[in-house]
């Protein structure tokens, strides 16, 4: 990758890697947020708050990776406006 050459098979699907990572992080974050509600119902206050914190951190990470995947997709398949 440091030589600036990516194989043709991967080249068109690079955005899919970022998309997959972003979606996986989003699913994990929703899991943690739902577990936080469950913990609070059973009176585990500290566990609930820290899993809510983990859920929101993962949410912001997943949004950043999804934004990156959108930019990579636009670079590969976007319309070129220069003439």
């Amino acid at each position, binding site marked *: 990758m440091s030589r600036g050459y990516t194989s043709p098979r991967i080249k068109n699907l690079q955005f899919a890697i970022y998309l997959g990572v972003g979606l996986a992080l989003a699913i994990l974050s929703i899991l943690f947020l739902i577990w936080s509600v469950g913990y*609070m119902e059973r009176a585990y206050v500290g566990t609930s708050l820290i899993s809510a914190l983990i859920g929101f951190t993962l949410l912001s990470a997943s*949004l950043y990776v999804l934004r990156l995947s959108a930019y990579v997709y636009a670079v590969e398949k976007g319309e070129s406006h220069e003439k």
Partner: protein
Amino acid sequence: MIKLLLEVLPRVIVAVLLFNIVNTFTSTIGLDVLGSMVKAPIETVFLMASLILATASLVYPTPFIYVLAIVTYSIATRFSVSMISLEALLSIGAIAVADHLKSFYRNRQERFVEIGGRRTIVLTLISVTTIFVVLIAVPLLANAYIAAVLPYNIAQKTSNNFLREIVVNPIFVLSFSLAIGIAIYRATTALPEVIAIYVGGSREVALETLKNRRDVDVYIETPLTIVKSLALSALFTPPVYEVVNMLILSSWQSSIYAYLIRGAVATILFVAIGYAMYRLEKPIVLDPKTLLILSTVTLLLIYVGGFIVSYNMYKNVLYALTRPAIGYFMESISNTYIGFYSDILIFLDGISKLFGVAP
């Protein structure tokens, strides 16, 4: 004609809110403003603020002032008259739409509008529905989540008294709700941006954004350096203090001046290390390799400490390697910290009592 409608409709909606506020005002406070200020100061102040804001938004029906009026009114009635409801959200949406249309509407503009075919109508309906669904669903989702997580009903079940005091505290509830609200807002604003770039992205702009290094290599100059150096010194001084205790002061442990000397040494060490941290702040901060090395070294030290304690107990190397007694090790470390803080607090408390500062 439509200009008239765009002026009248927001004011009608604000008039409904004003009617509710005046109703609540006359039923709770009446004319006895000063008496209710004594009995329930927060509610009275917020109710009067909401009255002023609602009158202001009658004159200038911008979404911002209207939202402020709704928020202050809800706080004033302690959410019992639930304006955080469907009608509030729809009214905010209607006022926002009217305010937006007013800014570029020209007279008789609607006569030049040509509606082109079925596809345009379907797309328009889909976009308007999406906007209003998101407008309603996101606050309701945030509200449901906060209501589910916040431990209103749990407070009686918690056996830990200190935790219960923190959790029932309104400031904690407010800051927690605010944090979750801001997080959900950031999530919902980032998602349409992602979708927009997917649908209509231009190649050059994306390449430019990806190659932009200025957003990544940001050095943040934090203003509270002294507080940070004090916090770092509070973290790093106890081990140093323990070492100094073991080496130098062990001969004076049982003397009558033991508390004074230990406390004085503890305070001097705290200030000295705080000053060292203040000077050393720049090279330590924000270097990922340094952070990685420091965290790995700390984990290794904990493991080695557990291994040594376990070896002392069981005298078997292989057994000690696989079962490091981290519990005992951490207990002795926490005893170090507790000892340091108790010494420093006894010293400061005694000195202040000696000089008559604290009663």
